């Protein structure tokens, strides 16, 4: 298996704890309790093994990674190893002093989530009063500390009309980059899909706005846009291909090829408690299950796009088609595409019920 290229990135899900309740949360519906989280020593070992394996980017995520009291220690460990550390945070739980400590420890980038362009909507979506104001305050300190800032927004029915306001807000916050990512329906988000799903017209308008604004804001802020895949013709190249570029470590130490892989039946996931990261990457059954193209069925098997999108997303195939080896049902060539269209037709005109807030 020596022809398996090493991973570039590792998503370290340090904890599932999070003060916010966002309805589009992509973490699993059942969360890992604090008592089951890896300790500092175990995370440091994982980071060292990641560097040896060839990983260059570490994404410190969660839940809210600031809920971990050892966050500065973990960042400093990344710095010692030459790993590029990226903090993915809601800002709620960070303090001004902690931002300074993280910067001094060598943190290289902060990605901060924002739920909407105004406080009323943003706090309603996050299910947390005062979150928006707190984010702006912490963002100012991130920028003052000299750290590059990306503002990340998940787009869905309740904020899709705010694309320009969100980009302007990100500029005001001092971000160099804004990531507009249309909601994807895994984990908790699947419960809220009927309230999050936007209709095709609204999605098209938002896409057109983002593409036009990317040009207008060139040199001021980079606009990265993750398209809404239910409205797409072809599926996304999920994770850049299974077991090809990145791996995720859950709070309890399970190594996953993607964030939602535990929703796939019959996969055997190895833990960093039992195996080295190199062993997991090269030999664990879960990482080899959908690596490359030999697992594919038709229409992927004979498709010229098979190394463009790698069959799309296995978890979406499971969630919609009921089989993880199926072509991603978003694809126009998938026999299951009507199920996506039916879900859209059923949900986009849906009523305005209450979110299931993540608690």
């Amino acid at each position, binding site marked *: 298996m020596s022809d398996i290229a*090493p991973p*570039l*990135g590792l998503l370290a899900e340090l904890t599932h704890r999070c003060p916010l309740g966002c309805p589009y949360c992509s973490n699993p519906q059942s969360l890992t309790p604090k008592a089951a989280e890896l300790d500092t020593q175990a995370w440091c070992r994982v980071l060292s093994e990641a560097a040896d394996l*060839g990983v*260059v*980017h570490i*994404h410190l995520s969660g839940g809210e990674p600031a809920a971990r009291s050892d966050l500065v220690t973990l960042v400093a460990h990344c710095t010692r190893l*030459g790993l*590029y550390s*990226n903090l993915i945070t809601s800002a709620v739980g960070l303090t001004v002093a902690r931002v300074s400590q993280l910067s001094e420890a060598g943190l*290289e*980038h902060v*990605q901060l989530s924002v739920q909407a362009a105004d406080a009323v909507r943003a706090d309603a979506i996050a299910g947390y009063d005062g979150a928006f104001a707190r984010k702006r305050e912490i963002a100012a300190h991130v920028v003052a500390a*000299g*750290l*590059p800032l*990306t503002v990340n927004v998940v787009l869905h029915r309740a904020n899709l009309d705010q694309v320009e306001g969100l980009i302007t807000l990100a500029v005001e916050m001092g971000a*160099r*980059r804004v*990531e507009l990512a249309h909601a994807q329906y895994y984990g908790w988000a699947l419960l809220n899909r009927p309230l999050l799903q936007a209709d095709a017209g609204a999605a098209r308008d938002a896409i057109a706005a983002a593409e036009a604004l990317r040009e207008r804001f*060139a*040199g*001021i*802020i*980079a606009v990265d846009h993750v398209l809404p895949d239910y409205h797409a013709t072809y599926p996304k190249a999920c994770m850049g291909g299974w077991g090809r570029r990145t791996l995720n470590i859950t709070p309890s130490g399970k190594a996953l090829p993607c964030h939602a892989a535990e929703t796939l039946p019959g996969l055997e996931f190895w833990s960093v408690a039992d195996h080295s990261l190199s062993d997991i990457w090269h030999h664990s059954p879960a990482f080899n299950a959908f690596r490359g193209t030999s697992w594919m069925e038709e229409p992927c098997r004979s498709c010229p796009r098979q190394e463009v999108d790698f069959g799309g997303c296995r978890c979406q195939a499971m969630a919609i088609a009921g089989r993880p080896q199926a072509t991603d049902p978003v694809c126009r060539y998938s026999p299951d595409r009507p199920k996506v269209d039916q879900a859209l037709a059923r949900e986009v005109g849906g009523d305005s019920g209450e979110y299931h807030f993540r608690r």
Partner: protein
Amino acid sequence: MKMPLAPDARPRLPRGVRLRQDPRRGWLLLAPETVFEANGSAAEILKLCDGGLTFAEMVDVLATRHGGDRARITGEAGGLLTALRDRRLLDL
């Protein structure tokens, strides 16, 4: 509309954007949530982006080191650096 790079601009990689020599992959430009493979000439250009040289001086250095036509080097380096500038991955 892409603005060309002024000859007296001093390109520098900001914090969070760095060049790294990877034992398996050659030169990589590490940036927020993305990695670019920097081929031979791109890496040579990026190594000079520390704010010490103007763009015109960078072109001189590259022309002296590697030979070649100044106009071609200006076009190639300018294309790379303006693309990075427009994505806020390069300060001037």
